[in-house]
């Protein structure tokens, strides 16, 4: 547990992606099996337990420390688990710290009554950092700023493999992943995935650049709408169904109405959407269904899920990936017409005569649930990753609006000495006719490094109030903000929130009074 605790401790404080990768790789490289396998499970949400830690440790602590001192400490620290980790009497004489594998296997067999005593015995054998890590582990949710994908990237990188290589075999394995480490370290063959409902790495698109568009031969490409949902891969067969997100996370638990209805043998690519009366609902609606451990009947009725299919990787055991796109499409359509899986349809191809028509369609795309266009080369096989020249995404032109800078916050990591995160607002008309500036969004990208320096200086020179790392500025600077859509928001005072806002231009020339009205934004709300 010592090395694992040190790893978690350092991960929590490190904002940088590369630093996190380095830390994890060093850990995986130097820690023996099965401890490192359990650590990998912990980092990828793969631990099978979750305990009501708080109640148990409060009871344990009350037996070891005066109640008043405990209360004062808890009030100061603010977090019960951390407080207990710090207050626990130091009795390192109680023996060596437990190994991670010891902890995990014991927890797999534990009784509710013995939980307290077992935890206490471990806490006795650990130091402050170890105790903190143990308590985190027990809750089942590490929250150390590492996604499952990043952890897999670290493991893969240990042996020069890509994360996709690891993703391919991942779902055929279970913790503590001995076969995975054996293969990565060159002691064994690649784990056999035959028959297992594993995730296959996706084929991804590049953003279409003007120069590429100019050189493109439209006859070589198939065009379809880019749907504004979540890319998913349905893997079904042998009675099992998996719904994988773009990054290979299993999200089927949140969509039982899909999982229960898919009875076929295929691996299909598509877009997860909420569909109501044949119309695609705004992305915001789909967001209400995500990350839910359980789904209510009301949820199912209010936000019915649907998958719009656009590619087939395997059908009835036959691997279609080497076939050209246009052939895979034919197979997909034929298969769909036969099998007719409920809550699905096939994304329609758009007939485009020439580039002029393509441009026209693109300019006019503002339908429900449409983000832009996809251009897929007809002759391309299904290739993992983002190979150039095969698939292009062409997002519709963003809307831009002029907003007034209201607050600026210091950035993180490399930008921590700059005010780089901006909250901007629009003018709301009050009942008495006067105007009030209300926040409508926050952006931290879109400007160049040179612009950042200028903005940072302006902010420092025009601060009217400070709240910790946040500065409120004179409402005098206008920013042209680009965004994809406007959603309703209960979090912002204005009632609206922009989707993917970024700073498009700084409008030094525009007076703040001429910036946008809140009404304009409200009028743009989808749905």
């Amino acid at each position, binding site marked *: 547990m010592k090395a694992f605790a040190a790893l978690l401790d350092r991960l929590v404080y490190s904002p940088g992606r590369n*630093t996190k990768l380095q830390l994890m790789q060093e850990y995986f490289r130097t820690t023996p099996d099965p401890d490192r396998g359990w650590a990998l499970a912990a980092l990828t949400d793969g631990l099978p337990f979750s305990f009501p830690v708080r109640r148990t440790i409060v009871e344990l602590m009350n037996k070891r*420390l005066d109640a008043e*001192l405990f209360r*004062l*400490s808890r009030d*100061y620290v*603010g977090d019960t688990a951390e407080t207990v980790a*710090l207050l626990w009497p*130091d009795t390192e004489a109680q023996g060596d710290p437990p190994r991670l594998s010891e902890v995990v296997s014991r927890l797999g067999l534990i009784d509710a009554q013995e939980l307290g005593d077992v935890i206490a015995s471990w806490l006795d054998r650990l130091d402050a950092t170890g105790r903190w890590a143990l308590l985190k582990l027990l809750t089942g949710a590490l929250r150390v700023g590492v996604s499952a994908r990043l952890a897999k990237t670290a493991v893969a990188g240990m042996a020069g493999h890509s994360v996709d290589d690891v993703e391919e075999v991942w779902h055929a394995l279970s913790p503590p992943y001995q076969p995975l480490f054996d293969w990565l370290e060159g002691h064994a063959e690649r784990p056999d995935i035959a028959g297992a409902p594993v995730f296959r790495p996706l084929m991804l698109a590049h953003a279409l650049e003007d120069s590429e568009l100019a050189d493109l031969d439209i006859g070589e490409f198939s065009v379809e709408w880019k749907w504004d949902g979540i890319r998913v891969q349905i893997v079904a067969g042998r009675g099992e169904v998996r719904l994988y997100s773009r990054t290979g996370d299993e999200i089927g638990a949140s969509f039982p109405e899909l999982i229960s209805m898919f009875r076929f043998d295929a691996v299909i690519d598509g877009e997860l959407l909420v569909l109501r009366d044949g119309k695609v609902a705004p992305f915001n609606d789909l967001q209400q269904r995500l990350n839910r451990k359980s789904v209510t009947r009301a949820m199912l009725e209010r936000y019915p899920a649907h998958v719009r299919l656009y590619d087939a990787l395997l059908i009835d055991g036959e691997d279609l990936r080497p076939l050209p796109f246009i052939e895979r499409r034919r197979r997909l359509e034929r298969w769909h017409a036969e099998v007719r899986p409920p809550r699905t349809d096939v994304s329609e191809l758009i007939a485009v005569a020439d580039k002029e028509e393509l441009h026209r369609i693109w300019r006019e795309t503002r339908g429900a649930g449409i983000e832009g266009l996809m251009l897929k080369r007809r002759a391309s096989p299904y290739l993992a990753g983002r190979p150039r020249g095969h698939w292009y995404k062409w997002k519709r032109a963003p809307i831009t609006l002029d907003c007034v800078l209201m607050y600026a916050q210091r950035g993180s990591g490399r930008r921590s*000495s700059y005010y780089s995160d901006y909250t901007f607002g629009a003018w709301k008309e009050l009942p008495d006719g006067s105007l009030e500036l209300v926040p409508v969004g926050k952006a931290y990208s879109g400007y160049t490094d040179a612009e950042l320096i200028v903005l940072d200086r302006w902010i420092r020179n025009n601060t009217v109030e400070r709240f910790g790392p946040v500065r409120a500025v004179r409402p005098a600077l206008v920013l042209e903000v680009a965004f994809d859509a406007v959603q309703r928001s209960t979090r912002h005072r204005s009632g609206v929130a922009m989707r993917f806002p970024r700073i498009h231009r700084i409008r030094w020339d525009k007076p703040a009074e001429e910036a946008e009205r809140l009404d304009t934004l409200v009028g743009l709300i989808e749905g």
Partner: protein
Amino acid sequence: MIAFEDWLQLTEAGLYCAPGGFHIDPSRPVDRAVITHGHSDHARPGHGAVLATPETVKVMQARLGEDSAGRFQPQPLNDPLTHGDVTIRLHPAGHILGSAQIELTYRGQRAVVSGDYKRTPDPTCALFELVPCDLFVTEATFGLPVFRHEPDWREIGRLLASVQAFPERTHLIGCYGLGKCQRLLALLRRAGYDRPIYLHGALKSMTDLYIACGQSFGELVLVSEAGRGLAGEIVLCPPSALKDRWSRRLADPVTAFASGWMRVRGRARQRGVELPLVISDHADWPQLIETIAETGAEEVWVTHGREEALVYQLGRMGKRARALALLGREDEEAED
């Protein structure tokens, strides 16, 4: 038998020894002041006469100016000095160079005002000397049971391991200019680190003073004279420079901070610290309790920090304890 309150009183300027006619660490200019150590929340300009250890006098003159007091009276440690009916003796407090506890004897009663102190041995200053007494006036910076500092050598070990693990980054350590900075330098050298150590300009004057008092820290280079980047090197700076424009010249710095406050994660996060080092120049909770018990004092006055928990605990230990609210002492981490 007179009460301690009869001769040790609280005025607007702070703790006042009436029979001696002097204040201890007053927050406003007074005629006579006995100063425990050179940190700015204890040592201030404008007094008529200042009594302190020779090192503290040097620190005050360097920081506040040679004429920042009407008269400076350096008083060697353990040398008794009688003023009226009061005998004053200074004892090492182990906090920073020159830090002292003030022992006051009056009509058979002995009071010791601790100033800031720690029990952990420190290569840059004399070790705390325990003085048995009837009244102990103690600081309580880390007056909560959650505060248990790490062994300093272990934290330095973690720092050096991090330097090894991330050779493409600069390790930037925030620390206060008087005491902590010099202790870190000494600890690094003791751990065998022999590369040049880089300093922010603000840390130079006190480091030079320590060197003038006979200490050595190996090769030190000012960052302003070293250029940019400094990947793989260790740089010390004042806490304010950690997230400041000044730090932009360094190579993707690992921000470290050496302080007892780093024990609490929220504090480290708040400061954007990537490598918290739980090294402190104050006593932690176990050391506070132990020290107070060892003095044998039946009466304890608690100042300068988190008084509530400590007063409560001392009550449980059968002592007469009370909190002394002293003006001019910040509630939170002024110096550490």
